[in-house]
C-alpha cells in the first residue's frame, strides 16, 4: 500500500499548486475530500477536445501534453506540469473542451467536479483571485506569442 495517497498527503501536494498556495490547509483538505482521486497510465487521454467539460483536474504527479486537433493531425501546444490545473476553461466558460489532454507519463490527479469547482470559487475569493492570475498570465503569454508570430509573419512578407 506504499503508493496509496492519503488526504493529508494530497493537502501537502495541493499547497504546492500555485493556484492554492494561499488557501488555508483546512479548506484544501475539504477540496481534496470532495474531489475524486484518479490515476492514468502513460498515453491515456484525460479528456478529448470537443467533449462537454464536467470537471477540472489538478495534476498531482506525472506529466501530460495539451494537444489541439488540426487538419494535419494533433498539434502539441503546451505541456501540463505537475502541480498545475487543467480543464478549468471549459467549466468556467461553459464551452466544450478546447483541447485534448494526453498523459506522457503515469499521472495521478484530483478530479474536481464542475459544480464543486464553481462553489469553491464563490466560497473562497482567494482561489478566484488565483485563478484570475493564472488566466491573466496565460493571456499575456498568448498575447506576446501572438505579437511575436505576427511580426515574424510580417517579416516573412
Amino acid at each position, binding site marked *: *500500500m506504499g503508493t*496509496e*495517497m*492519503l*488526504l*493529508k498527503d*494530497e493537502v501537502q501536494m495541493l499547497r504546492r499548486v500555485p493556484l492554492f498556495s494561499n488557501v488555508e490547509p*483546512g479548506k484544501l*483538505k*475539504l477540496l*481534496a*475530500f*470532495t474531489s*475524486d*482521486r*484518479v*490515476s*492514468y497510465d502513460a498515453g491515456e487521454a*484525460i479528456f478529448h477536445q470537443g467533449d462537454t467539460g464536467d470537471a477540472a483536474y489538478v495534476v498531482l504527479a506525472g506529466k501530460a501534453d495539451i494537444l489541439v486537433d488540426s487538419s494535419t493531425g494533433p498539434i502539441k501546444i503546451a505541456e501540463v506540469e505537475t502541480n498545475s490545473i487543467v480543464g478549468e476553461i471549459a467549466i468556467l466558460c461553459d464551452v466544450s473542451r478546447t483541447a485534448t489532454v494526453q498523459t506522457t507519463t503515469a499521472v495521478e490527479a484530483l*478530479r474536481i467536479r464542475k*459544480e*464543486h469547482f464553481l*462553489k469553491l470559487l464563490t466560497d473562497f475569493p482567494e482561489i478566484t483571485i488565483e485563478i484570475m492570475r493564472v488566466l491573466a498570465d496565460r493571456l499575456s503569454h498568448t498575447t506576446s506569442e501572438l505579437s511575436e508570430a505576427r511580426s515574424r509573419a510580417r517579416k516573412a512578407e
Partner: protein
Amino acid sequence: MEKRLARYIWTHTRAQQLWILLVVAISMVPYFLSFDLPKQIVNGPIQGQGFDQPGATQTFMNISFDLPWLGPVTLFDGIDLTRMQMLFALSLVFLALVIVNGLFKFYINTYKGRLGERLLRRIRFELIDRILRFPPNQFKRMKGAEVASMVKDEVEPLGGFTGDAFVQPALLGGQALTALFFIFMQNAWLGLIAAVMVGVQAVIIPRMRRRLLVLGRERQITARELAGRVSEIVDGIGTIHAYDTSNYERADIASRLGRIFKIRYDLYQWKFLVKFINNFLAQLTPFLFYCIGGYLALQGRLDIGQLIAVISAYKDLPGPLKDLIDWDQTRQDVQVKYLQVVEQFSVERTIDPSIQAVAIEDPGPMKHPLAAVNLSLADDSGAKLLERVSVQIHPGETVAIVGGAAGGGDMLAEAFARLTWPESGKITAGGDDLLELPESITGRCISYVSADTYFFYGTLRDNLLYGLKHAPLKDAAYEGSGAAHRKWEINEARMAGNPDYDVNGDWIDYQAADATDREDLFTPVLSVLDTVQLSKDILDLALRSTVSPNDHPGLAEGIVEMRHALREELEEAGLSSLIVSFEPGAYNTEATVGENLLFGTATGPAFIGKAIAKNAYFRSVIGRTGLDRAMFDMGYSIAENAVELFADLPPDHPFFQQLTFMTADDIPEYQLLLQKLQGKGFDAASEDEKGAIIRLSFRYIEPRHRFGLLTPELMAKIVDVRRQFHDGLPESMRGDIERYDPDHYLASASLMDNILFGRISHKHSDGSKRIRSIVSSLLNSLGLLENVIDIGLDFNVGAGGKRLTAVQRQKLNLARALVRRSDYYIFNRPLPGLDHRLQDEIVRDVLKLVRRDGRDPAVVWVLSNTALSSLFDRVLVFDRGMLVEDGTHAALVENNGIFKELVSS
C-alpha cells in the same frame, strides 16, 4: 344501441324471463299450501277436530279434483291415519313444504342473479366494443376515467334489476290485484275506497319521485366528472407541482364534493319524504275503513264480519303495493342511468364491426400504391390542415416528407394511419377506400409511428411485441380441470354475447416478425433493438436487476463462469486493476469495511439494515475479538475528520454529496458526541453512542475517503473476524445472510454485481464505462446475451411506459413498428427527443433494416431534420397545407424552390 332498457332486457333475456316467470308461478303452489297447513295442524290433530272418538281416523293425502265437464278425478285415495299419526304426518308435510319453498327461492334467486350478471357482462362488453369502434376524433372529447366509470359503475345496478324486470311486477301486481279483488268481493264501496287510495298512491308517488330521478341523474353526472377530475390530477401531477396549483386543485375537488354532498343530501331528504307520504297514504285507507266502515256497521248497513274480513284482507295489500312502487322507482332509476350511458356511447360514424373482424389468415402483402385523392383534412374547429392533396406512394419507394411546422406533411401521415379522417377526398389502396378496408389488412400492412408514444402496463417485451398480436393464432393447451374451465369460459362468453377468443392463447404472429416461433424470435428482435439503439439500455436494465437463478436455468452457471472470463479478459488488456475481486481470505480495499466484515449480502431480518447493530451474535463476535474497539477508534477518527471538514458549511452545500457516511443533519450530533467522549474512549461511551460511532466505520472505503485509517494489521484482523463470524454462525441465522462465494451465484445481488464479483476501482475515472463495454462484449461471446436481454425485456415499463425515459419510449415506439413486417412504414417525426447525430444514425439504420433479406417495403418518413432527405428516393415538400414540391432530392435542390430554402436554413 337500444334506448329503452326494458326492451333491451327483453330482447336479450326473453326465454329466460318466461322460464323464471313459469317457475315463480309453480312455486306459488307450495307457497300457498304452506299457508293453510298450520291451521290444519292446529284445528285437526292438536285441537281434535274430526277426531272426536278415540281411535278415529282421517284420510291423509287424498288427491282428487272436481274438474268441470269431467267430474271428480281421484289421483290418490289417501290413507287413514289416527290423531297422533296425523300430527306427525302433517308436521312432516310442513317440513317438506318449508324445504321445497326454500329450494324454489334458492333456485329463483340464483337464476335471477345469473341472468343479471350475464346481462351486465353483455352491456359492459358492448360498451367497450363501441369504444373500440369510435371514430378517432371522438377521443378528443372523452376523458378515460369518465368512460371507465360509466362502464364499471354506472351500469352496475342494471345487473341487479334484470332479474326483477318482469317477474317482480307480475308477481306483486298479481298479489295486489288479488287482495283488491277480495276486498271488492266483501264490499263494493270499501273496495272502491281502497281502489281510489291505491290510485292516489300510484299517481302521486311516481310524480314526487320525478324529482328523485332528476337528482339521481345529477348525482351520476357529478360522480362521473369527479372520476374524470381525479384521473386528470393523476395524469397532470407534474404540471400541478411545477406551477404550485395543488391548492387550486384542492379547492376544485372540495367544491365538487360539496356539490355531490348537496345532491346526495337532497336525494336523501326527498327519498324519506316520499316514503313518509307513501306510508301515510297506505295507513289512511284503514283509517277510512274504521271510520266509514264502522259508521256503516253501526248504521246496520254493513255486516261486522264483512268489515273485519275487509280489514284483514287489506293487510295483504300495502306490502305488494309498496314493493311494486319501489320496483317502479328502481326501474325508472336504472332506465335513467342506462339512457345516460347509452347516449354517451351513441356516436355517429362508428367503425363497422366487419372492418375489425378477427382474421387468423395472413391477408398477404398490399401490392397497390397508397394514394391520397383530393384529400382535405380539417381540425376540430374547421381550420384546414391539408388542402386537396393528391399524391401516390408506390410500393417499395422511400419518401421523405419535409416542410415547416404547420406544413401539413404530418397530417398526411396521420391520414395514412387512419388517425385523422378525411374532411373531403379519400385515401385509397388500389381501388379501395382505406377506411373501408378491414383493419386486418390496413393494421398489418401499414405500420405507423409518431412521437406520441403509448405503452400498456406490462413488460418491455409485451409492449415490443404488441404490434404482432392481431389474432389468437395458436390455442393454449389445457388439461383436466383447466380444459373444463376453458369450456365453461367459452360457454359463458357466448351466453353473454362476448367473443370467446382465448387471451391465453399465442397471439404473436411470429412470421410477421421474421421468426417461426418463440425460440428463434430473439435474433430479429435484437437486430431491431440494435437499429434503434435500445439494446444497450435494455442490457443495463438487465444488469441492474436482481434475478432468481431458478427462473433462468443455466444463467447462474454462465455468470459464474463469466467471472473468470472477465478476469482473463482484463488481464490480457492490462486492466486487471480495474476491478478488485472479493476473495474469501483477503481484504477488498475498494469495498466498505462493513462489506469486508460481513462478506455477504444481508437477506434476512437478523442482519438487514440497523438490525445488525442489535444482533447479539454479531456483537459477541466483534466484542470477543476486540474489533469493536478498533472500529470505534476508526469511527471516532472519521467523525473527527467529517466534523473538521464540514462543520462550517451550510447544510445545503453541494460538498455534502461526497459525505457518504453521514448527512448534513448528523454533523451537530457528532460534534456534541465528540466533545463528550474526548479523551475518554471506548469504555466511557454508552451502547447507543458506541453504535453511532461504529456505524461510521462500516461505510468507510480507504481509497475513496483517504483518511488513512486502515493499517495492514487492521485489515488482517477484519478478515480474521469475518472468518470467525461465518464459521460460528448459528444455524438459525444461516438463511439471513448470503455469503460471497467465488464459485456460486448470489441470488440477492444484481446481475452486474454477480459478474464483477468485486468492486470497480476508484482510481480509474472511466472505470465503470470501460467495464460495461467489456462485459457486454463478453456476454455476447459467451452466448449469454440472449439470456440477459431476455431479463431486460422482463422490465415492467409502468403505467403508460412512464418508467422509461422519454428517449427510451421513442426508441421503443419505433422498435415496436420495426419488429413487424409491413408493406408501408409511416414514420411521423418519431424521434424528436433525440439529438441530430443519433437521429441521423437511426434513420440510416432503419432504412437498411427494413430492406433486410431482400424485402422491399415503402417508407414514408416525415423528417424533422431536412438534411436527411437525401437518403430517400423522393421528397415531398409541404407548405401551409399544400403539397408544393415533389421530386428527387437532386431535382428539388436544382429547383430553387421552398425545398432549397428549407435545406439552407
